[in-house]
């Protein structure tokens, strides 16, 4: 099981998980309150610098975020179809800054701390009878835990295509990826039940 967490002792690692999550939430809101390209560009530069300070090489940082960057480019191209260039640029800058900051929080926060903090932050909603706070924490922890696994699985399917001399296309990789992911998700769900992690 690989993880998105990066071992280290930088200032970002030392910040409390709750502070990072609340900071990320505030930063996200702030990004959507401005349309100033210069300000958003500055946010991207700061977010990029902070992200590179967590102990990843630029190549590794880019490799980890490449799928998200591809998605952002697709969103930008779609935005260009209906909006002026400036609007598309605002979208790209906003999402890029957001992704870089979120990736920094993910890289510097252990999954266990994520689960503990999101569970604690969800407690008020549990008191309102909306959902179980522990389930929210567990769900977020599982998402973070599974992202590298799904990417590994996708790579394995691509290699299986290559081994058979086939070109890997999303039309032929998506279905096996979904099937494998759902099958493992069943096992993980059974393991969670068997270990008594959800006791309500």
């Amino acid at each position: 099981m690989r993880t998105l967490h990066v071992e280290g002792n930088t200032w970002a690692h030392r910040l409390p998980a709750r502070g990072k999550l609340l900071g990320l939430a505030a930063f996200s809101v702030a990004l959507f309150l401005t349309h100033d390209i210069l300000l958003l560009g500055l946010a991207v530069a700061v977010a990029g610098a902070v992200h590179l300070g967590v102990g990843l090489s630029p190549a590794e940082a880019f490799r980890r975020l490449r799928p998200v960057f591809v998605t952002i480019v697709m969103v930008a191209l779609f935005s260009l179809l209906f909006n002026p260039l400036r609007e598309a640029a605002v979208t790209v800058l906003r999402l890029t800054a957001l992704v870089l900051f979120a990736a920094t929080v993910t890289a510097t926060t252990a999954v266990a701390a994520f689960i503990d903090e999101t569970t604690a932050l969800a407690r008020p909603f549990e008191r309102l009878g909306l959902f179980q706070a522990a389930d929210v924490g567990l769900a977020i922890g599982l998402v973070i835990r599974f992202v590298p696994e799904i990417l590994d699985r996708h790579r394995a399917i691509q290699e299986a295509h290559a081994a058979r001399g086939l070109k890997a296309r999303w039309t032929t990789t998506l279905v096996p990826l979904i099937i494998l992911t759902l099958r493992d998700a069943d096992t993980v769900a059974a393991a969670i039940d068997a270990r008594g992690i959800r006791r309500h």
Partner: protein
Amino acid sequence: MNADHRVPDLNIRFENAGVSYGARVALHPLSLTLGERRVAVIGLNGSGKTTFARMINGLAQPTTGRVLVDGLDTAADAKAVLGRVGFIFQSPQNQIILPVVRDDIGFGLKSRGLNKAAIEAAVDGVLDRFGVRDLGSRRAHELSGGELQIAALCSVLVTGPNVLILDEPTNQLDLRNRALVERTIAGLSESVIVISHDLELISDFERVLVFDRGRIVADAPAAEAIARYREIAA
């Protein structure tokens, strides 16, 4: 959270319990009692072994009859049964939720309302039991297959079950890791039910159930049951 909580005489009872999925019968209704310390379940792929084992801790519910663990119905008293029956899956990497072994072992105790110090003590206790304290600080993806099995075992045993079900515990392990897992299983004080194709692993078990097409076709000491299994597989 330790061995003191274990009930010494475990009793698992199948009362005409079977599982069907529509017209397909996964396990024909069967009645038996398991009380031995070491029970193995063998059979060809798709013969009903795993369904049988999953019924013991309530992961699979009978569509006919019932299964009782120490008198507790696996359907009606599911939570209590889960506390008594631990389950190690075929792929331990899917059982380990958190990246760091120590965090993962303690994770199953958080929902029990224990404070941090009690969780830490329980985690240390179970790691020390197998002499693998150093495993605690390691990341699960760095572990060998055998170490991964031990980590999964610790994550289950820390909750103090009376009986442990291991599904193919030596599957895909090299000889060294297989020996590590075999030694560990042999040293367990809990009752153990092992599902396996590894006939050497279960060769000294007190009782071996042989499954074929959803039925038990042999229920005997290891040597006799393995001979019967070889006949079926031939």
